[in-house]
């Protein structure tokens, strides 16, 4: 067996070798690696503050484990939920529902939450709800631009507030104009804590800022007192931490599994009516389409370029001159050229030298001798004035042609 030894000629391949690929991309790879390391390092050093914010299981400065423990000590049953479905089923007459970040809920989720809580006698506590959230979760209340969080006096008749005294409040301020509400802790005239009584007997508490629930602030002023009274008014507390894994957050109205809600509203989109097999099949077809695009996009070698010669028609300048005279209506010049050409051709036919072809005294007698008595006015035809209009120019050309034909055939 003869093994193929090293080829005698150097490789003709133009493709890059793996070694070349490595040489070319190592700088880029190094940069990407540095970027990733830097990002991880930054995340590790800077992420501690806000991690576990308002989480009743977190003991960090911004967590809420302290208040959770206090509530448990007071005999309140405590439950943490992360999905809207759990939150709405938990809502009931003897339950306080705390929504830590109502602004993160989708409009649909907010509507669902509102529908589930408005009919109960329980309490709903919303932390830092912004204008769009408030318009859905507590219709009629208006949210105003936030104020700074400082210690404020209660300045209201709410027993819980009066007992707690000064509390660190602030944040979003609310205006419950004309509603049945108790406004407390005003900041620049508008309350930052608002207790809204519902027609069904329940109530909704809007807190402009959640700062007094943080572990690090709970022990200051009357923070703990207010928190215990607001959250401990019912025997059960449902602590709702909205999460991205909640199916109701990703899907549309028909896709959150809350089927009876949808049929009750009578709204279901086209996508919702299609069997899921079709959707998944289409998704697989999309994969096939991408593969087909990759298949068609790959060319068999690069395009070949070629220097092309210039393409100038030799007659271009003559054509240009024709158009120019046409535009300028240079009938005199055109007629002169045509007459000159005809005279030159006829002179050779009747035996007049080219030098004398354009002298009427020489050419006209020679022509008359050739074609007999002159038909009409040869003089005017060959040496006359320029035609006055375009039709006369066309006619002149025809008459020159017919004269030449006559001379040729005679």
């Amino acid at each position, binding site marked *: 067996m003869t093994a*193929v030894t090293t*080829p005698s*000629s150097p*490789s*003709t*391949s*133009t*493709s890059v070798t793996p070694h070349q690929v490595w040489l070319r991309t190592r700088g880029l790879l190094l940069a990407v690696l540095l970027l990733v390391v830097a990002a991880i390092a930054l995340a590790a050093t800077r992420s501690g503050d806000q991690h576990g914010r308002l989480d009743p299981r977190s003991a960090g400065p911004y967590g809420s484990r302290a208040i959770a423990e206090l509530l448990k000590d007071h005999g309140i049953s405590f439950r943490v939920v992360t999905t809207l479905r759990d939150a709405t089923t938990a809502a009931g007459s003897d339950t306080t529902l705390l929504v830590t970040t109502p602004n993160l809920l989708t409009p649909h989720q907010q509507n669902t939450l509102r529908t589930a809580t408005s009919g109960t006698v329980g309490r709903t506590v919303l932390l830092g709800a912004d204008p769009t959230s408030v318009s859905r979760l507590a219709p009629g209340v208006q949210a105003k631009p936030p104020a700074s969080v400082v210690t404020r006096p209660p300045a209201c008749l709410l027993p819980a507030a009066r007992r707690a005294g000064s509390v660190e409040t602030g944040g979003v301020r609310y205006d419950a104009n004309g509603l049945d509400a108790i406004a407390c802790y005003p900041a620049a005239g508008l309350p930052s804590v608002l207790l809204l009584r519902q027609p069904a007997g329940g109530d909704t508490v809007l807190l402009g800022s959640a700062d007094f629930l943080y572990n690090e602030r709970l022990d200051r002023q009357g923070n703990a007192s207010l928190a215990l009274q607001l959250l401990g008014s019912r025997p059960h507390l449902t602590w709702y931490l909205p999460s991205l894994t909640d199916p109701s957050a990703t899907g549309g109205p028909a896709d959150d599994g809350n089927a009876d809600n949808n049929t009750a509203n009578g709204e279901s989109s086209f996508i919702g009516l299609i*069997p*899921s*097999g*079709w*959707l*998944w*099949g*289409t*998704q*697989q*077809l999309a*994969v*096939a*389409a991408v*593969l*087909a695009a*990759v*298949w068609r996009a*790959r060319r*068999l*070698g*690069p395009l*070949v*370029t*070629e220097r092309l*010669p*210039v*393409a*100038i*028609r*030799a*007659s*271009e300048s*003559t*054509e240009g*001159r*024709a*158009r120019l*005279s*046409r535009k300028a209506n240079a009938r005199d010049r*055109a*007629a002169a*050229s*045509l007459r*000159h*050409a005809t005279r*030159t051709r006829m002179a050779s036919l009747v035996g007049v030298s080219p030098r004398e072809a354009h002298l009427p005294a020489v050419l006209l007698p020679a022509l008359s001798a050739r074609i007999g008595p002159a038909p009409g006015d040869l003089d005017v035809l060959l040496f006359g004035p320029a035609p006055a209009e*375009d039709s006369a*120019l*066309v006619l002149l*050309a025809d008459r020159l*042609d017919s004269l030449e034909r006559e001379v040729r055939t005679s």
Partner: protein
Amino acid sequence: MALTGRTALLAALGSLPVGIVAPSWTGMLAVNAPLSLAILCDYALAAPVRSLQFTRSGDTTVRLGDQAEVQLSVVNPSRRRLRAHLRDAWPPSSWLPGTEHASSRHELTVPPGERRRLSTVLRPTRRGDRKAEQVTVRSYGPLGLAARQGSHRVPWTVRVLPPFTSRKHLPSRLARLRELDGRTSLLTRGEGTEFDSLRAYVPGDDVRSIDWRATARQSAVAVRTWRPERDRHVLVVLDTGRTSAGRLGDVPRLDAAMDATLLLTALAARAGDRVGLLAYSRRVRARVQGRATGEVLAAVVDALTPLEPELVETDARGLVAAALAHAPRRSLIVLLTSLDAAPVEEGLLPVLPQLTQRHTVLLAAVSDPQVAGMADARGTVDAIYEAAAGAEAEAQRRRTADKLKRYGVVVVDAPPDTLAPALADAYLALKAAGRL
């Protein structure tokens, strides 16, 4: 890496099990994971492209209009069977328009360690050198799902020679030449003939051609025969400036001038004259000098092949100086240029006496049949203006030609298809008149 239509088809068929049996991420994974694995395996099992070895052979020259065949042999040194599509890329003008795709693609199967030969047929549409571009190979795996692709550079050049369409006129002009030539011996002596030989008198010969001195030396009556002068010098000067770039139909003026050059070279070489060539625009672009008569035609063809018109104004002074430098002895200088008024009157006429005082000058120009057609246009107003412009252009050419003739220059002005025979006739006429 390249995929095939089969891959896309399989993925599309996969939508059936996904849609019917398992409409979920699991279903998609169950279809696409084996497919991806198959693609990767196929890619890994395809014969490598980088290690292929190529060599070329075949035609290196072809006349424009004919076809050339270039062979490409492929050696597959790997242990895997090569199933591939191969593209042998050449510049687009190497093929007739529309046939590039079919002519450049080849399907190829090379068993491990063996060699196969492909042949690419070129039909160039333009004169000049055609250099081979890359050879691209797409090597498919055994399943036909994925392919490796790579290119190799295998240099080869095919020189596309001028078509020399006027060679059909050569036999008739050679016959005319023979009439002038000693082979149909002339008994009359005149200008442009030289002594050829003595031969025995036969009844019918002109008694004036009897060489009495030779007759006295011999016992028989001898007559002298004459033949046209030989070993004259002809220098063809080709103007490759901007006026040669204008197209008549689909070919530039320069190509018509080249055709005429080739016919004249072939004829003059047969007539025993020494032919030289000079192509000039603002510098000498090609030259042929001092070649033996047998090889001059090939040398001229070779020199003309890569020439393209340059879009610059020809330097007439430099052209005349170069011509004088190339024609040390009395020669016939054939100037292939234009009869446009401005370049001739401003450029050539002032320096023409330097040429005419020593050499015979023949100026050949290609006229435009389209302008002649314009001069005959009638009917509409536009046509009349065209006719007037055409007539004016022709009159202008005639005037320029007359000015040149006053310097003793022989002028040949003909459309591209008749320029070559007209120039050959002018050459024969000059030769017969002994003006070389």
